[in-house]
């Protein structure tokens, strides 16, 4: 186990040196920071726009990191022949691949953690910028009942306080010391997203174990799309069955669709973003998707290990 962790930490160290990672992270943070400006363009759905933009950025950039960093991990080791220095040591191939997988997952999750921290801070900061909250904090009632306008210094102090408090609250939320119903929902949505990324990372490693980075990237993106459309495949199969099978080809198509719906990853299971908007719908941690995510990732990783074992490095 220690060998796996050694490779995982090494992979993490290697991944954090990857410039793509920082470019993606900076982009994600910029988008989240600009969500306040985008929120200004809307009417009466400001909080929703900011939340959606943040959640989508975290999910989408997490996916991009999984693809762009994941596809090169194994290939680069083979291409640069650095794998020889590892396989000559008493390390099994499965330990190497699992280590790589966990290292990449660690990289993605730490990035997500940074993005979530920043996103929560943005949400809390927007809360401080609410006209009601801001005016109550800044306006002072005078003896004659009039309200005195705040000074530039009091504005500056308020903004500084808002930034510090937002960062503190974001830290508190991540350490589960402080939360609101919205942020609790956001954390669960992100958690489900992490399970989805565990599967996608598994596929990135699988494809990377037998093909080139370009092909791996294409295959991972396709797998992601199929996974997101998984629910439509079974609907398609059911409709075919309802119509009845007139030819054997139709029956074959039905069987193919049925098998595909069961074999391809059901990424829709981890999409809880819609529930954030629906009133009275509480996002809960459910055992079934968690179990599915873990088992599916393990299965894909097992397949990757199997292929990698058979691979000739010469």
């Amino acid at each position, binding site marked *: 186990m220690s060998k796996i962790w050694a490779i995982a930490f090494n992979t993490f160290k290697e991944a954090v040196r990857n410039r793509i990672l920082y470019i993606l992270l900076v982009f994600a943070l910029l988008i989240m920071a600009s969500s306040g400006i985008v929120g200004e363009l809307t009417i*009466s759905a400001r909080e929703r*726009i900011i939340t959606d933009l943040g959640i989508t950025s975290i999910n989408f950039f997490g996916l991009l990191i999984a693809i762009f960093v994941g596809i090169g991990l194994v290939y680069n080791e083979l291409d640069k022949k650095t794998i020889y220095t590892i396989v000559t040591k008493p390390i099994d191939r499965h330990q190497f691949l699992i280590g790589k997988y966990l290292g990449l997952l660690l990289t993605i999750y730490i990035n997500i953690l940074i993005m979530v921290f920043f996103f929560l801070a943005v949400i809390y900061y927007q809360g401080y910028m609410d*006209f009601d909250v801001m005016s109550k904090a800044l306006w002072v009632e005078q003896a004659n009942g009039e309200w005195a306008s705040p000074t530039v210094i009091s504005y500056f102090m308020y903004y500084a306080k808002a930034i510090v408090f937002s960062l503190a609250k974001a830290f508190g939320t991540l350490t589960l010391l402080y939360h609101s119903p919205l942020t609790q929902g956001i954390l669960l949505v992100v958690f489900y997203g992490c399970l989805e990324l565990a599967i996608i990372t598994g596929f990135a490693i699988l494809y990377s174990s037998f093909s080139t980075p370009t092909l791996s990237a294409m295959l991972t993106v396709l797998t992601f799309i199929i996974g997101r*459309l998984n629910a439509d495949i079974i609907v398609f199969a059911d409709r075919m069955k309802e119509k009845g099978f007139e030819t054997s080809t139709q029956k074959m198509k039905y069987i193919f669709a049925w098998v595909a719906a069961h074999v391809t990853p059901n990424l829709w299971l981890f999409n809880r973003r*819609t529930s954030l*908007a629906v009133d*009275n719908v509480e996002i809960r941690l459910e055992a079934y998707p968690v179990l599915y995510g873990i088992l599916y990732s393990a299965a894909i990783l097992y397949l990757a290990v199997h292929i990698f074992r058979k691979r000739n490095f010469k």
Partner: protein
Amino acid sequence: MENNITHKKNAAKNVLDYTWRILLFFLIFIPAVFIQNKQLNIIRKKPRIYRQSLYLPSGKNIRLISIGYDRFMADFIWLRAIQAFGGHWESDRNYQSIYHLFDVITDLDPGFIEAYTFGNLVMGDEGGHQRLGLELINKGIIKNPTNYLLPYWGGYAAFWQMDDPVLAKYYYTRALKARDVPNFVSRILTYMELKSGRYQVAFEKYLRDWLEGIDNQDDIVIGIASERILDVIDEWQRYIITQAAKKYVVETGKNPSDIADLAKAGVIEPYTMIDTQILLAKIRQYSAQPGKMMNHYQEILDACIRENATSLPKHPRGLWYFFNPSLNPENTGYVVDMVRYLESMQNLLSAVRKRIWTFYKEKGRHPYDLSEIYKDSFKIPEPFGGKWIYSPYDGAFYSSVMPAY
């Protein structure tokens, strides 16, 4: 020493090289920015047309290609819909094409309550397409059966915009079944039993929208609600004056010649008066204070409403009410304000002048007096208390008070 000099020379050369590269970059880039500036000026001058919204695929198709980011896509189209609304608001005020955008948004995210309510506001209140607005509301009710806001909006649209109390009652009863329904919705059902209930419903709805608009700093919502609330008060006052005028006719057997006659004859039934001055003053007062405007909703309502008023209603925009001289109390449009009054007087003058001109073409002379062109003599009184002046020499017809018209 020599090495040091060479090193300094190289460093200077590098700086020069670097500066030259930066200059070259700007030399290439600045003309591009200049061209872009020219293009932007062309774009600015063009009228904003948002017809491309019609070419957007259906929500179901967009949902398919959005691969799980459908909520984000809904937000994106939502922002576009607001821009499209703004564009039409500033230009042709024809919002029919935006309906498709709201339809797509609600297909992508059926839980997007603001899209249904704002869509209804745009289609019904602003666009006059009440049926389309109600279609959006109905779609929302099906997708969000536990939400009170949508049937509440549907009830308002049916009662105020479509004048259909049966349909409105259905919506309000449905709204009352929702778990989180606020108290004011139950009050609306009692308004429905009153004669002036539809005005009360519309007034409270717009007041709520206005205050929420201020709380959320939504300028568009504030703009619409603040205008519409004055329209509602205006329409409400006209209704009261018309009712009083009808009573005046029954009691005296003649049309009132002036609006003040109603107060003198005591025919104005006790009514609920909205004091617009106090309403505006209260909104100004509370918006200059910290805290949510909605917290002062009841205070504002209590301050501006006067029950059992019998004085002449005042125009909410500071104009005056008049009787349309060419109509009687049974006609809609009998009570008009200064602006519409001058319009109607202009119409009346045009109609009389046209008859005079037709007579001239047929007979080759102007009529000696108006009884020649009006069978039962011309009985419409001069609305400003002056006289009609007719000259048989040149066929001129005008009011002694406003000869320029």
